[in-house]
């Protein structure tokens, strides 16, 4: 018995307006000709032009992209291994500590993670730069990856792996040919999650970066501390646009894949 009432419709409308209106305003005002950010003075794309001439932003974007790709790839490998250990390795010494270290970073305040990593890097005399940001991002995002992947591994039918082994596969081959294709969607969404977390991170990057490497969030933060600026609105619009296109196309692709899988299964049932 489900009744969709006026109350429900109102709650949904207000809720989603609340969620989206600030971003819509931001996007609209990024095309504002005026430097005054709250007064509309006609349509213009000049802030985008200025943005693309600003080398500091372009450099920061490049650093962010390098850190994002490197750390999310490393995090996916380590996180998948960790998920495998959590779900499959059975009992071993220090298992409790291991799962604790996987879950703790998920609830740790970023200021503490950042501070502790910075103190480590200084303690061992590692120069701060792109490399240290990659290490830091890999560490916290591998935990997210392992949570995503292990939830898929739990529901995975282990007899498929055993069958592959019985049929003469080496353990590595059985992983590559059987396990990996099945957990691939979780591994991919783990990678995407790690990538977005890395692109988004301000606090940990601020602690672990040096003067040689500034990421985009650090750059944005130091700019917006002084107030709203049309250039940042333009940059934000680009970032919102990229994410929206990415998420929507990913959901269309996975929906198609699900439909195809259902058709394949039906076809298999009939034959």
């Amino acid at each position: 018995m489900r009744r969709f009432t006026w109350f429900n419709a109102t709650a949904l409308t207000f809720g989603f307006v609340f969620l989206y209106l600030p971003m819509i305003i931001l996007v609209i005002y990024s095309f504002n000709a005026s430097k005054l950010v709250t007064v509309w003075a006609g349509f213009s794309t000049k802030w985008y032009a200025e943005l693309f001439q600003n080398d500091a932003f372009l450099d920061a974007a490049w650093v962010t992209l390098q850190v994002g790709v490197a750390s999310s790839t490393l995090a996916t490998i380590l996180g998948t291994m960790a998920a495998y250990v959590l779900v499959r390795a059975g009992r071993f010494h220090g298992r409790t500590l291991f799962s604790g270290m996987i879950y703790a970073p998920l609830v740790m305040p970023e200021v503490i993670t950042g501070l502790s990593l910075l103190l480590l890097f200084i303690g061992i005399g590692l120069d701060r730069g792109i490399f240290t940001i990659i290490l830091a991002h890999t560490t916290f995002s591998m935990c997210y990856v392992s949570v995503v992947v292990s939830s898929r591994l739990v529901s995975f039918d282990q007899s498929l792996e055993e069958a592959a082994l019985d049929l003469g596969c080496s353990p590595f081959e059985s992983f590559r040919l059987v396990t990996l294709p099945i957990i691939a969607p979780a591994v991919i969404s783990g990678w995407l999650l790690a990538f977005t977390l890395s692109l988004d991170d301000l606090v940990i990057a601020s602690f672990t970066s040096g003067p040689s490497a500034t990421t985009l969030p650090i750059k944005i933060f130091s700019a917006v501390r002084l107030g709203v600026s049309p250039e940042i609105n333009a940059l934000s619009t680009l970032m919102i646009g990229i994410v929206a296109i990415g998420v929507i196309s990913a959901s269309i692709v996975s929906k198609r894949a699900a439909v195809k899988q259902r058709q394949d299964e039906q076809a298999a049932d009939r034959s």
Partner: protein
Amino acid sequence: MRRLFLIAVPYLWLLALFLIPFVIVLKIALSDTALAIPPYMPTLDFAGGWQAIKDFFSALDMENFVFLTEDDLYWKSYLSSLQIAAVSTVLTLLVGYPLAYGMAMAPDEWRPTLMMLMILPFWTSFLIRVYSWMGILSNEGFLNQFLLWTGLISEPLIILNTNSAVYIGIVYTYLPFMVLPIYSALEKLDGSLLEAAEDLGCSRLTAFWLVTIPLSKSGIIAGSFLVFIPALGEFVIPSLLGGSGTLMIGKVLWEEFFSNRDWPVASAVAVVLLLILIIPIILFQRNEQKEREKNQ
């Protein structure tokens, strides 16, 4: 051999980059401030042998923790962080519950779209979502322009750089964390229970209080912790939307480290924050555990 390798690689990584850094924080929290590089004393010197290690441990003390209790900036910041996190959690629940309820009651064919609309902001940069409120809440901002235009107010309200702006920022950015667990609890709700309650003479409102709310309790608890725990250590929201009067411990820690360069005090602040967080984290884990057992 292969199993050992599989365990060892992520294990050693986390030990080196998660656990050991914490031990360092703890150690520096127990050290004295020094005008040197690195700015703390004592430093451990293994080359000095057993005597050096003994000296090292005897030089550690609780001085920085005592300092935290003496200077009222710190305990005021902890209390005000707890208060801001608690108030915003309640506000997020008040905004989030009707939204989750609406999603759960919506026709089946709407749900994937509603779900995506709810998740999409989560993938968008946190910093940008917080920043988007700066233009809305400022004195000449859109909210004040709108309210002046409607004639509800005659002078602009001062919202940006106050605690109210921090509440709005937390509710806005953490809303999906509240909505999604409540939605997943409500989605499983058996509609015939509500029918039974109404057949037995409950009004719809009473049935909602007596049936729907208790059955979505686990979602409410999970959502509240998912908002409360990160809000407590929040840095970006108070520093962009809050004012100089907004005391939040994440911001204090940041300033202690970057502006005052007092590493030992910053580390002590971090250790105490962690001790405060342990309680809600354990409660949250227990709630999750109970849910898992119930579902099996």
